[in-house]
């Protein structure tokens, strides 16, 4: 196993270097605002950005809007891309920067739906299980709505997306310790909020 680790760079260095070069070229085209480059990045990274957006906002429409904003702002954001992280991580960090507005609108929409008592129920083969899962997810979304944005982002990145604190810190553009602190406070508050909701 150890020998394989040592030999791996020799075998895989060429493709990795060429991939990095390709990414650099792609970023250069993004900086020039080429539509084809944006479409290329979109096709490659839509799933990642959309998954993060959906997990963060808890709302399909808000997630699509956030994805839209991320890719529309990509040409200008690419100007400050230094290649220190992967393009995927960079896209998620753009989503974090644009999330505030969408989180507010998603929370408003959720609150309005609950007030009107017509929360959409999933139609699936196992409705009982799905309903309880949906209820739990909704409870967590409601609790997340009460968190500051930064703590919410830290929780979604580390707990929902299973990213390391280092990666989350890189995306949020803060020191790792800060990311850990935010996660700690987020979890503490969420526990209290879920407990409160359970006792109701």
């Amino acid at each position, binding site marked *: 196993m150890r020998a394989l680790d040592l030999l791996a760079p020799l075998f895989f260095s060429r493709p990795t270097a060429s991939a990095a070069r390709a990414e650099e070229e792609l970023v250069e085209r993004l900086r020039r605002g080429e539509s084809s480059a*944006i479409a290329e990045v979109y096709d490659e990274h839509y799933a990642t950005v959309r998954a993060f957006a*959906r997990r963060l906002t808890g709302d399909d429409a808000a997630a*699509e809007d956030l994805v839209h904003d991320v890719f529309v702002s990509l040409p200008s954001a690419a100007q400050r891309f230094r290649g220190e992280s992967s393009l995927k991580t960079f896209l998620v960090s753009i989503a974090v920067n644009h999330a505030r507005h969408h989180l507010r609108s998603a929370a408003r929409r959720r609150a309005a739906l609950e007030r009107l008592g017509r929360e959409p129920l999933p139609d699936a083969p196992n409705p009982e299980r799905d309903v309880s*899962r949906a209820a*739990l997810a909704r409870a967590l979304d409601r609790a997340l709505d009460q968190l500051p944005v930064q703590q919410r982002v830290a929780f979604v990145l580390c707990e929902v997306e299973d990213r390391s604190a280092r990666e989350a810190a890189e995306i949020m553009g803060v020191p790792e310790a800060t990311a850990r602190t935010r996660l700690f406070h987020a979890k503490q508050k969420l526990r209290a909020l879920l407990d409160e909701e359970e006792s109701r």
Partner: protein
Amino acid sequence: MNDDVLRAATRALREEADASKGRGAETRARVLATLKARRARKLAAIRVMVPLAAVLVGSVAWADATHRLPSVWYEIKQDLGFGREEEEAPAEAMSNPPAAAPAAKNVKGAAPAEAPAEKAEAPAEKVAEAEPEVSPTPSEPQAAPVDAVGAPMVAAPKIAAAEPPKASAPSETAEEAPVAAAPAPRVDSDDALYRAAHQAHFVTRDPAAALAAWDAYLRAAPRGRFAPEAHYNRALCLVRLGRTAEAERTLELFASGSFGGYRKAEAKALLDAMRGPTP
């Protein structure tokens, strides 16, 4: 217990998110349409702004080359209402850009504002008394004889104010000196220089002293409110002193409209008289 609930809720949230179907194609089309529209807007803005900028730059360059810039600037300020404020506050106006104000413009509303400050203390009766006296009003055309070359009588400026009776010249009796009933502005050194030059020019009629005084005023306020008048009167002094070449150079500027329409006709007439009938 709490940790279990939080863990279960997190898993549920992840599964819910994963189960939701994205509208990738729709959002892709939206992104590309937004980018296209943005690019089109940028292009349209460039298409509008570049010709506008070119016209603006061209106009300014043309106005500068033809010495029309001061008068154009004055017109713009008047249209925007800044000129009026300046007239109300002459002290501020002194430090502002050149005021190649045509005399006709000054006649309308500027006269009371142009009164030097010390005159403000003069009572209204005194103002009325002072009317027939020579009052250095830059806006009012007044006779300034140019005997040296036998040129036609040309207008000389005077200050619209209640000049104390000391300044008197029978030939230059003002017919229409406006009554300065408005509160007068404060006196500053430029005003004093202007008055001294006016005194030398119109009252003591000493062209050499007047020339020196006008030069002193123009040195102190090269872009002052009365600068065009000072330039014109300086040219008259040069004519009287026989320095016709220098006088012609200055009068040419007036005749060519470098100071707008101010003294244009008089300068032309004076130049014609100086040069004599063309064969």
